[in-house]
């Protein structure tokens, strides 16, 4: 039954946003708390349309208690290849050992599966339902104003989790943080292309001014099909070209791409910011993209968000069990997720700040210098260490981060 105009609904924990991170926070809360937990999702279908390039590392899946993965994995990859503007190439991965280092997902299936796992723990879902504001009393979040099918109503909750993704309106309505700086925003466009010629056993990253302040990615979905997309830094755009214009130009200029057909189009934004100073207040926690934990170098937000969601759910359950959803109690969440993610977020943020200053020639130098190195691990640290060995001059300004 849909709520009527003016109704007041009640629950113990309300999660706003049915993305993978919201569902996962709800699932871990439900595992540890037996009261009423509800997820509201604005869209009519969870996981669709996809706003993602679908590339992930796979190491974290066990920790998140996700046992069956085959049905949402599209393609495993052996490693990554980075290309400089002048055509130098750097291969990363445990090629010889034959281990996979990453995978490309089916995000729509993954997002639905995360909701299924939450549903199995007793979480309730309400679709086509938007939070339109936060309700606060004396600085404490008490719930949200919501709208479904044209009717506006109230949902009261002892605790609200904002998992509303890049839109991140819950955190801003509740004044937890400011809006993002343009240099900390990547705007993205992607085609899924078929009938293209490329190496489907690797992910591919093209660096340099073809994608100002960002990169072009090719993430394989199969033999001749891949997500071909680009992210550019907002502050590097002068308004004459959109990110889609840059992507179209790259595709047009490359014969192995321009023969292909686009079978899907994706737009979206990601934050590449430092971690916010705080993501909790009385009665409210933020998680995932809404908590701005996207890796500032790669723009990947799934792994970090999922790890954070587990902690958020566990702490939320404890707070509800102990009847204390104050900001002070919720520090347990801040402490645990920061312990796990914050150092790396800062380090990669600093690396991003430096990397966007490199010109095409410097990208050529770096990639050329590295091309005969064996880098097994796809991490910023591993790359910087290798650069430092070959090109001490270039790496000097990065040194303080290592």
């Amino acid at each position, binding site marked *: 039954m849909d709520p009527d105009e003016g109704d007041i609904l009640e629950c113990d924990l309300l999660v706003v946003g049915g993305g993978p991170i919201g569902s996962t926070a709800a699932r871990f809360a439900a595992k540890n708390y037996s009261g009423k937990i509800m997820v509201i999702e604005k869209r009519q279908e969870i996981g669709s349309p996809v*706003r993602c390039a679908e590339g992930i590392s796979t190491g974290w899946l066990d920790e998140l208690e996700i046992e069956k993965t085959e049905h949402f994995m599209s393609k495993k990859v052996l490693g990554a290849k980075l290309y400089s503007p002048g055509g130098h190439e750097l291969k990363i991965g445990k090629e010889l050992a034959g281990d996979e280092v990453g995978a490309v997902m089916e995000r729509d299936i993954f997002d639905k599966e995360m909701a299924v796992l939450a549903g199995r723990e007793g979480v309730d879902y309400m679709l086509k339902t938007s939070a339109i504001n936060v309700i606060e009393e004396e600085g404490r979040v008490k719930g949200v104003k919501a709208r479904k099918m044209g009717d506006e109503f109230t949902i009261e909750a002892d605790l609200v989790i904002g998992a509303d993704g*890049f839109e991140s309106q819950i955190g801003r309505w509740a004044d937890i943080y400011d809006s993002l700086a343009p240099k900390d925003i990547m*705007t993205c466009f992607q085609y899924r292309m078929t009938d293209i010629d490329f190496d489907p056993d690797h992910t591919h990253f093209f660096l340099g001014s073809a994608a100002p302040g960002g990169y072009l990615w090719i993430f394989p979905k199969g033999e001749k099909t891949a997500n071909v997309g680009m992210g550019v830094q907002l502050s590097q*755009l002068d308004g004459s070209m959109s990110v889609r214009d840059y992507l179209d130009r790259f595709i047009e200029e490359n014969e192995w791409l321009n023969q292909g057909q686009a079978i899907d189009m994706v737009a979206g*934004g990601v934050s590449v910011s430092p971690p916010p100073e705080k993501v909790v207040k009385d009665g409210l926690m933020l998680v995932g993209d809404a908590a701005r934990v996207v890796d500032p170098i790669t723009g990947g937000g799934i792994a970090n968000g999922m790890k954070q969601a587990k902690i958020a759910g566990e702490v939320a359950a404890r707070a509800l069990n102990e009847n204390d959803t104050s900001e002070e109690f919720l520090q347990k969440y801040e402490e645990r997720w920061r312990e796990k993610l914050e150092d790396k977020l800062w380090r990669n943020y600093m690396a991003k700040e430096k990397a966007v200053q490199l010109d095409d020639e410097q990208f050529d130098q770096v990639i050329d210098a590295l091309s005969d190195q064996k880098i097994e691990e796809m991490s910023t640290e591993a790359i910087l260490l290798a650069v430092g060995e070959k090109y001490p001059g270039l790496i000097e300004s990065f040194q303080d981060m290592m």
Partner: protein
Amino acid sequence: MSLEINHDRCMHCGACVGSCPENSLFLREFVLEVDESCVECGTCVKTCPINALKLRGV
């Protein structure tokens, strides 16, 4: 309001919503809305991956 939203181009991705310094935009499911708090700074225009937004007269 002088922000023009081209609903035929919009892919309702929310990139503009998350970028708006004033939090003036809202995706009403898949219809983008702007409210009176808009200061016409143009951040959303630049952000839009597909040129669906423009400031009238610019």
